[in-house]
């Protein structure tokens, strides 16, 4: 579809010519706009390509790609994030098989890019053949997962449950390890970093905040004045202040309110901040879903003889939660982007690693543009696929069409 002005002149079929006349040159004003835009596009693209290929120095990224992926995670323990990655890609493949088009684009993109990464000619000793092999297995696993997900035996519920189990295993067993187990030594969270940290904070934040958010939303609509008051105070306070202040509160102020001897891990404190923040927004999303449930549903449930607890659990919540899926995806995107703020409390997420890499070598100090642009592109890709999936979901659920 990328038709530009140049295609007017060649002896093309009347189709494209007609299209160009209608969409680009319908009147003099549109023609003027088209010519200006083509000029703008031409100069922008030429400048960007010239800079990207000839001026820019991409060494900060090519020298240590593993830093951006897993941070300072001990290099002799890399099989642990590796296993986690393989398990995740297999599950992404299964999700593609089960939920089809919502995951399809992302699964294919992930497989292709990991495959390319495996054979990408990077001249650095940090990428060992073992790592390349691990990357190369991923596309295969995605495909296998897809075939398995397509079969009748696997349901969406099973995949969701599997996701829960696997992510618990990864975050609680495989990555942190244990103090006294020789095969799985403890790796403190201070050396976790990069994309791994960003994903953990974002996923952890949204998953853990969900139950709290549901409780707050129910609390806000509750008929008990005390519960309602506390819920409203919590939600409005958290939504009224920036995330930075909440992260800061958990990283510095929280220690003042706990018994003097208690110490909480720094990453855990940041995660608590994210959950705290995210819960208030989840609560508002869920409240929107709750309000959309017609009163008749509740009356019918009462008539059948269910009590309030049963009505909420079996009638209202299942319907409400399905309605808030798109809003939750949107919130997840926002939270995913907001994880960058943890650099302010000194955690090496993707952006933090970027800052660290810039200080790694005196030659890199002036290469901020390259490093931050690289990070921006990674975020962009993830967010783009998530918003794409969310759009498909909205279409399927018919939100906004009622």
């Amino acid at each position, binding site marked *: 579809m990328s038709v530009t002005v140049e295609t007017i002149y060649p002896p093309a079929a009347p189709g494209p010519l007609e299209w160009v006349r209608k969409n*680009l040159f319908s009147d003099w004003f549109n023609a003027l706009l088209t010519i200006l*835009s083509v000029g703008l596009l031409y100069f922008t693209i030429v400048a960007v390509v010239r800079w990207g290929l000839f001026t820019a120095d991409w060494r900060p990224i090519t020298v240590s790609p593993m830093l951006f992926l897993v941070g300072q995670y001990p290099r002799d323990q890399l099989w642990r994030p590796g296993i986690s990655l393989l398990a995740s890609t297999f599950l992404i493949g299964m999700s593609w098989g089960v939920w089809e088009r919502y995951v399809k684009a992302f699964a294919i993109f992930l497989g292709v890019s990991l495959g390319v990464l495996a054979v990408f000619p990077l001249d650095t000793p940090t990428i060992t053949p073992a790592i390349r092999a691990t990357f190369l297995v991923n596309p295969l696993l995605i495909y296998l997962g897809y075939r398995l997900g397509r079969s009748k035996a696997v349901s969406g519920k099973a995949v969701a449950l599997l996701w829960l189990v696997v992510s618990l295993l990864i975050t609680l067993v495989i990555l942190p390890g244990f103090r006294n187990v020789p095969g799985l030594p403890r790796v403190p969270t201070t050396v976790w970093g990069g994309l791994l940290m960003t994903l953990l904070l974002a996923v952890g934040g949204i998953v853990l905040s969900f139950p709290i958010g549901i409780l707050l939303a129910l609390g806000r609509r509750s008929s008990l004045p005390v*519960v309602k008051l506390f819920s409203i105070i919590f939600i409005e*306070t958290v939504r009224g*202040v*920036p995330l930075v202040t909440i992260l800061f509160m958990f990283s510095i102020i929280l220690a003042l309110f706990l018994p003097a001897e208690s110490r909480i891990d720094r990453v855990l404190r940041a995660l608590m901040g994210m959950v705290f923040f995210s819960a208030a927004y989840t609560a508002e999303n869920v409240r929107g879903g709750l309000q959309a449930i017609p009163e008749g549903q509740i009356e019918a449930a009462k008539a059948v003889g269910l009590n309030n607890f049963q009505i909420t659990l079996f009638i209202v919540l299942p319907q409400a939660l399905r309605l808030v899926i798109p809003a939750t995806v949107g919130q997840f995107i926002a939270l995913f*982007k907001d994880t960058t703020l943890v650099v302010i409390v000194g955690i090496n997420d993707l952006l933090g690693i970027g800052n660290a890499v810039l200080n790694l070598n005196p030659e890199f100090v002036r290469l901020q543009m390259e490093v931050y642009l690289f990070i*921006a592109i990674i975020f962009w890709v993830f*967010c783009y696929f998530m918003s794409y999936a969310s759009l498909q979901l909205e279409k399927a659920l018919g939100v906004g069409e009622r």
Partner: protein
Amino acid sequence: MTTTVRASEKIPLWRDERFLKLAAQIISAAIILGLLYWAIVNFLEITRQRGMPLTYNFLKEPAGFPISESHIPYEPTMSFGRAFLVGVINTLLVSVLGIIFSTILGLIVGLARLSTNWLVSRIALAFIEFNRNIPLLVLLFLLYFGVFSKMPAVKESIALPGPIFMNQRGLYLSWPRLTDTGGIFLGFLLAGVVLAGIAWNVLRRIRERAGRETYFGWVSLAIFIFMPVIGWFISGGSPLRLDVPVLQGFNFQGGLRLTPEFSTMLIGLTIYTAAFIAEVIRGGILAVRKGQVEAARALGLRSNQVLGLIVIPQALRVVIPPLISQYLNLAKNSSLALTIGFQELFAVGKITINQAGRAVPVFVMVMATYLAMSLLTSVILNIYNRRVQFIER
């Protein structure tokens, strides 16, 4: 209907709804208040050990740290309270300017997205998708470390038409400033705007009531032009002069200087929020049903009347609520200025915590200020929103 069931006496306590509700409230209140009590006891214990009383006396003590950018007189010898005020003003300034510019840019991009010109629409889409899908902090770092800190030295400033100069020390804009007699002109200009507004309203109402042509548009336009012209002559012909930045020695003199930090925050917040606002505006305009426009045309309204009387009032109804939350987001996002060294509310608060060592009181002040700003903005805009919604129904 006359059967009296004395059910309430027979219901056991654990199934009596009133009792259950009361119990649930007491239990939840007890849990929350208990947690609060526990936290406060811990806190008092720690403050007692470290000797930091929970008072605000330190606000009168000298701050002792410089603030690079202040719009009220400030010296490090002045108090912490004064420093805090400087921070609040910086936050307000960048937020208000950001809201104004992002609304304008968002409107342009939103309309471009709806353009029938395929290329223009795609460029607007690219702008929206680029900004919406990267974190604001990364965008700010790109702008600050990638663009503004890469600017040439003062001697090799980049000159743009205006004249505008860009260098390491920031942006130097040519800026209109009032001359000594400029106040008179400004007064007349203001009077012209007010009188024109009154004339428009009064004459229009007369036309609507009496049905005779009053030429309200032309009359108010004439007043609007006539008053400033009088003002121009009375003020001696030159109410404004252009303050042009000039290179003198090692630095530019005159003009309006925007520091790199302030420019980064303003540009970053503006383009980031504009992308979201563009989507809001597009959604609002698309929400007006096609039949409305067709009906208006069928009635014989001109296309600007269709836009002004039919489309915009209905689109506004849809647009205002999400617009409010975008504005609030922008104000809250201004706290990221801390990372690039623009000293607004949160950055000043953080330095104060380090200097005065009173984490909790300072933190309460910072949170309360943000909360007050958010609540105030949403109250004002919600009142406006209610008026817009009323017109429709």
